[in-house]
């Protein structure tokens, strides 16, 4: 019995090491006083972080990315709520096929979507490339994820809860606000978080559709041509990792609280 457990433990340690070792390198080199990414370390410095906050083009890219990611998380989650609500409550002809079409971007390669969107937006719609077109593209690829998350949240809702509220005199809309929304709120937060993350680190579509308004991944990629910029990117990466950990923790906290409030038991989730 003991050896079996040890086997798993070794596997888990190896796996986690493989997963996190490169990420651990980020803060190490972010504080290393050298533009060369190699051991041995030279000395401690915070100059890369200072360079970060004074680099206006990078800050602009961060701003672009945040604008896009926040818009996408709101849009994709809103669409997700409507779609999930429709599929779990209403029957309509061609429902299966329609859902399949909505979920298709989940498996379609991003590069294909990017090329197709670029063609459609510039040639057919005649729109100028901007953050708006990126938001459009990201919403397209994030919505299937939000639908999947929200579908399960809506499906686990007992229909009679809605009917009970309606029966007690509420309208359809106030029932949604008072009963359904609070109960699916954990799902909504999860969906927003996922959409935000998908948008934040998406490169291909952003590269095709952002025009002159580069998002963070597009900017980072362009900076790798200059070796002296790499430690700054490392510093940026360190901040992003910390941010994701905080974000995930907060989201998970809300998810668990939502489940506890609804009297359920936690079953996995993201963490």
């Amino acid at each position, binding site marked *: 019995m003991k050896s079996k457990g040890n086997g798993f433990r070794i596997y888990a340690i190896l796996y986690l090491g493989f997963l996190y070792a490169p990420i651990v390198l980020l803060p190490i080199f972010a504080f290393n006083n050298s533009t060369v990414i190699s051991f041995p370390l030279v000395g401690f410095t915070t100059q890369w972080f200072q360079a970060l906050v004074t680099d206006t083009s990078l800050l602009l890219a961060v701003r672009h990315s945040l604008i896009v990611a926040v818009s996408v998380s709101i849009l994709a989650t809103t669409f997700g709520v409507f779609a999930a609500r429709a599929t779990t409550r209403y029957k309509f002809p061609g429902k299966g096929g329609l859902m399949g079409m909505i979920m298709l971007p989940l498996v379609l390669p991003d590069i294909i979507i990017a090329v197709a969107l670029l063609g459609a937006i510039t040639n057919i719609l005649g729109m100028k490339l901007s953050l708006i077109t990126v938001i459009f593209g990201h919403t397209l690829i994030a919505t299937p994820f939000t639908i999947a998350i929200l579908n399960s949240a809506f499906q686990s809702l007992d229909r009679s809860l809605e009917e009970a509220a309606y029966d007690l005199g509420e309208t359809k809309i106030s029932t949604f606000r008072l009963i359904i929304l609070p109960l699916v709120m954990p799902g909504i937060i999860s969906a927003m978080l996922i959409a935000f993350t998908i948008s934040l680190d998406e490169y291909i579509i952003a590269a095709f559709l952002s025009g002159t308004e580069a998002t963070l991944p597009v900017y980072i990629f362009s900076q790798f041509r200059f070796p002296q910029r790499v430690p700054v990117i490392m510093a940026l990466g360190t901040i992003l990792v910390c941010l994701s950990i905080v974000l995930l923790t907060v989201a998970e906290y809300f998810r668990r609280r939502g489940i506890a*409030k609804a009297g359920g038991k936690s079953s996995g989730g993201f963490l």
Partner: protein
Amino acid sequence: MTSSPAAAAPTPKAKRPLIELRDIEKYYGDYYALRKITTDIREGEFFSLLGPSGCGKTTLLRCIAGFEELSGGNLLIDGKDMEGVSANHRPTNMVFQSYAIFPHLTVEENVGFGLRREKATKEDKARRVAEALEMVGLKGYGKRAAHALSGGQRQRVALARALILKPKVLLLDEPLSALDKKMREQMQSELRKLQRQVGITFILVTHDQEEALIMSDRIAVMFDGVIAQLDSPERLYRRPVSRKVAEFIGIMNFLPATVTGTEGGQIQLEVAGLGAIAIDAEQCPGAVKTGEASVGFRPETMTVLFEGDPEPTRGKIAGGEVEEVVYFGDMSYYDVKLDGVEKPVQISMRNVVGRPVLGRGARIRIAWEAGALVLFC
């Protein structure tokens, strides 16, 4: 008054109809779920819809509540046609099978949910919530999280939440089916008491005939989207209109019979095992016609005569043989082959001190009375 033949049975207090169902029809796609149901439900009565699974009980209840649209017919509550009136504007409230307690709210917030739209002071609402909780025996539970309650307690919260609005009609869809046996029996009598106390019309859906008999003033027995019989529990048990109703409610034995004639309020019969008899026309709640028929009787209406028992002063005697006997503590259940009848009948007897329980194969005599028989043509 209704489509069912025995529905005009007299009840002690003839009250005015609160709910009038007129040729109610409901289609689910091609499926004909409710087939022209016409009946009245009276003010202040405890009314049950009883029937096997899939007969349309829930559908009818949901039509009354306003959750389903009628495909045909009219529904009147308190004289007002409910067409176009949605569930949130009907004077009905529902207790759901799953209770539908809002899990993110406290007991208090659940019970007071329906008061949100009323213009009353906070104190007034709080007082009404407290009263409602006390009424269902949940005094002091107000601050609890609703999801931290037992099944029986949820049931009470659901009741309080529905009754706080003082609806004209309370609709209950199998409210006790999720409870264990003991809790269910307790809630049955509590529900009955509560209904008498508040005086609100209750419509209960159940597939448990015992539950319906215990609680109801009147029971509508439904099969396949139609009401087969609407009567008081006693009449339903004693005078079922058809074999189907009789078989659904308790146990009934059937003997083949031939109707030989009818005259002067009497029906002449030739019954296998019992011989030629005459019964009251009232004992045939369905339609009478001469020819092949069957006669039914409940297991407790016949008596097994033991050695040394005094001869019965009333009724007649038939002979038979014990085929099987099941001892049940307070009762014994005999399967008896009546002389001249193929199929054994069931007779139940209360066990009395000093009286033996007869074993298989024993010859017995059976005392019976014509008044206990029901005729099905």
